[in-house]
């Protein structure tokens, strides 16, 4: 009996202890969850991201739209979305890829591509500093590089990359925008041909392309390509300062697997960073070492004077072979499938972010040159010397986190590295390699960005984390939730989370720049007298409708608050009607839109002084309204017109009018 009582009280105690433990662990879990969600948020951060109505943000951020194919422009620190620039995907809102003027922008050697996957924005640089002239961005799927003009925030040029299988290690400028680069993520047969996939190791090659940028016009051309082994080339950065003249590309799948890469490409302890001496390449080109290789690619250019793009067929490209060009390429062994490759502001340190590793490998440019001079080679692969790992290594940031992807710098001697697997950012000291601080991200960060963080002079006030997963961070919107970025203050010893903000598509990478480097150059209107569009009407007197067989050209104007003409008759079923619409306004922020009922097309949104063309093939008789789609004025609702469509065999006279 005594024992039983004792047993009872012991059992009771155990039960109570378990309940208490259970409750407290529940409490702890709730606390942990809460801490995860909020991070270490101090109470007054709102005021530090608050930009009062009418005030400007301090920085522009150009954030890639990923699988949206576009480029988003945000203000920092507010995180406000300012504009989505259509680049690689059609955009019916702006008629990009729908208007006759912009359709050629999306032409490729495969035909019209309405979509791509836009990954890495890169601002042009002068003397290693962002200069606010252009933003480049790569199209990953059908290999291309685009140039966006930062006076208009419009895509000015797209060049296709031949002999490439997916343009990921791109565009990453040199320090005076001499070149932007384009390395293939997927090696492909060279030349492209019908072969068995298991001939990968023999028949496939990886191509790295150097695109020359005209310093005045910005126009791009593929100056040369370098033929490399069939690895996957992941990311790139060019040297700066002492390492100016070199560009570094990371590679993975040095195992040359062509199936189940998640295993096959993860076997080697070390993959390679390919260091390309592009100044040497220029010498070899001057010596005639470049092979003129037949190629098939498009070069699309938008002309601001005619408001029109043209697509040009290109048929040849120059290829350099490392076997014939000693000193052109070296391989730097780097642990575990490195993703980002980042050069510190001095140009001395080359950071390989081995994404399947816990450590961060930092090479020294000085060591690399010494190893080259002393021929410290492990081996030679397809004519490319592999430098001895220990001879180029500068140091290792030890056990920094799990899955390092990408590093940027603050200009105060610190590196900031994103870790995808451990979902955090680690701040470390360049030179001593000690870890200084770490902060969680929500969730699974890919790249990060500090304005100018990959230039010679970072503007190290804020840092933006671009996350791959959002889960519960925002109000749920069904199975597909928003993508997200997070803003940190990095001016103190500790990184401090300030703000979450949603992004379009998937934010892969971003560039930031002090607003004053762009604001003063931003165009307000296009000058009407400089409009050289072949179908422009510069005044209402110049408007007309001209029939050329089944093609009907309508020269139309728009001004607050009417179209001229606004009554059109004599159009027939089966005609192809070209509406060439000129916005006569010469005032800031007075666009007009244009659309016709049932015209199987997108609206055009015409900026002041601009001419845009949209086509319509009417399929049935009737009288159809058209109207202005952009609320422009007090009489916007009156900005409308009618177009009469008669039977194909009718004799309705062609006529047009306004106010009659």
């Amino acid at each position, binding site marked *: 009996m005594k024992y039983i009582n004792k047993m009872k009280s012991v059992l009771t105690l155990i039960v109570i202890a378990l309940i208490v433990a259970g409750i407290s662990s529940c409490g702890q879990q709730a606390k942990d969850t809460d801490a995860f969600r909020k991070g270490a948020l101090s109470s007054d951060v709102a005021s530090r991201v608050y930009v009062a109505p009418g005030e400007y943000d301090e920085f522009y951020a150009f954030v890639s739209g990923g699988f949206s194919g576009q480029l988003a422009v945000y203000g920092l620190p507010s995180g406000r979305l300012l504009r989505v620039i259509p680049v690689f995907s059609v955009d019916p809102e702006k008629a990009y890829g729908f208007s006759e003027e912009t359709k050629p922008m999306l032409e490729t050697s495969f035909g019209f591509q309405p979509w791509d996957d836009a990954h890495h924005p890169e601002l042009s640089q002068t003397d290693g500093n962002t200069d606010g002239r252009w933003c480049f961005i790569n199209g990953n799927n059908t290999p291309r590089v685009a140039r966006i003009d930062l006076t208009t925030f419009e895509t000015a040029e797209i060049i296709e990359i031949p002999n490439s299988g997916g343009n990921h290690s791109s565009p990453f400028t040199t320090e005076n925008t001499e070149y932007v680069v384009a390395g293939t993520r997927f090696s492909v047969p060279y030349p492209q041909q019908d072969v068995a996939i298991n001939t990968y190791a023999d028949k496939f090659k990886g191509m790295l392309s150097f695109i020359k940028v005209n310093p005045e016009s910005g126009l791009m051309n593929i100056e040369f390509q370098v033929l490399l082994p069939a690895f996957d080339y992941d990311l790139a950065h060019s040297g700066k300062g002492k390492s100016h003249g070199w560009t570094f590309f990371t590679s993975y799948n040095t195992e040359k697997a062509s199936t189940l890469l998640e295993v096959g490409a993860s076997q080697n302890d070390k993959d390679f960073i390919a260091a390309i001496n592009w100044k040497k390449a220029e010498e070899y080109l001057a010596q005639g070492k470049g092979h003129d290789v037949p190629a098939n690619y498009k070069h699309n250019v938008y002309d601001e004077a005619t408001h029109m793009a043209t697509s040009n067929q290109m048929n040849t490209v120059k290829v350099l072979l490392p076997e014939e060009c000693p000193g052109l390429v070296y391989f730097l062994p780097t642990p575990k499938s490195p993703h980002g490759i980042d050069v510190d502001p001095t140009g001395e340190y080359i950071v390989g972010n081995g994404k399947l590793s816990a450590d961060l490998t930092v090479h020294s440019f000085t060591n690399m040159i010494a190893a080259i001079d002393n021929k410290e080679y492990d081996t030679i692969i397809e004519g490319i010397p592999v430098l001895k790992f220990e001879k180029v290594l500068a140091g290792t940031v030890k056990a920094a986190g799990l899955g390092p992807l990408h590093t940027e710098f603050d200009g105060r001697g610190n590196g900031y590295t994103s870790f995808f697997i451990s979902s955090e950012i680690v701040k470390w000291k360049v030179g001593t390699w000690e870890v200084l601080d770490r902060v969680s991200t929500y969730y699974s960060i890919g790249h990060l960005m500090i304005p100018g963080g990959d230039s010679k002079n970072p503007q190290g006030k804020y840092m933006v984390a671009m996350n791959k997963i959002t889960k519960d961070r925002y109000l749920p919107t069904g199975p597909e939730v928003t993508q997200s970025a997070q803003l940190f203050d990095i001016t103190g010893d500790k990184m401090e989370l300030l703000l979450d903000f949603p992004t379009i598509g998937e934010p892969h990478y971003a560039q930031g720049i002090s607003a004053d480097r762009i604001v003063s150059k931003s165009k307000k209107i296009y000058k009407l007298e400089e409009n050289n569009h072949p179908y422009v009407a510069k005044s209402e007197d110049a408007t007309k409708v001209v029939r050329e067989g089944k093609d009907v050209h309508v020269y139309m104007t728009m*001004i*607050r*608050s009417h179209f001229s003409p606004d009554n059109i008759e004599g159009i027939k079923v089966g005609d192809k009607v070209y509406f060439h619409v000129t916005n006569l*306004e*010469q*005032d800031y922020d007075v666009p007009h839109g244009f659309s016709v009922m049932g015209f199987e097309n997108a609206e055009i949104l015409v900026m002041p002084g601009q001419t845009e063309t949209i086509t319509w093939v009417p399929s049935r008789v009737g009288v159809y309204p058209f109207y202005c789609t952009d609320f422009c*004025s*007090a*009489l916007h609702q*009156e900005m409308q017109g009618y177009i009469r469509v008669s039977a194909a065999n009718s004799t309705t006279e062609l006529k047009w009018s306004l106010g009659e």
Partner: protein
Amino acid sequence: MKKYARAIMVIAALTLGLLFVFPMWKITLLAPQYPTGISIEIFVNNITGDISNFNIMNHYVGMKTITVKGFPELAYMQYIVLAMMALGVVIGLFGKKSHFWIWVVFMIAFGTVGLYDFYIWEYNYGHTLDPAAAIKVPGMAYQPPFIGRKEILNFIAYSFPALGGYAVGISISLAGFAALIKRK
């Protein structure tokens, strides 16, 4: 001092030349959607500035379109100025004190007529409204202020002399001063 009277008179006449470089008058409209304002500048022989935006804004209430051709004064006013300059130089070099005064009186007369003409134009511009105008506000006129600041519907209008206008004032003052100190 008196020996400088002729020189001052010549300078006074030549000062009118500034009318060909700077506008006489400036009218500015300010509104929430025009935070930096839109302005027109009236020269002795031209009108410049945001004329098309003035016209676009004002056509909704039926105001007339401003064009250079709509001001016949702009065609001949410059010749009056040139003539007065020539006359002033001649008087400065060879004229008597009374001639000096005559030039001053002429200038004041021309200035007054000019200002009156400007007022009449403003009155007509603000009151002559197209009966078919889209927006009609009963009893509303849109005459800009003759000189100063005035609120007109959602706009604030400013009307002030510009550099050329001040040059006329300076010219008259200099000539008056020259006349005062001139020996007979």
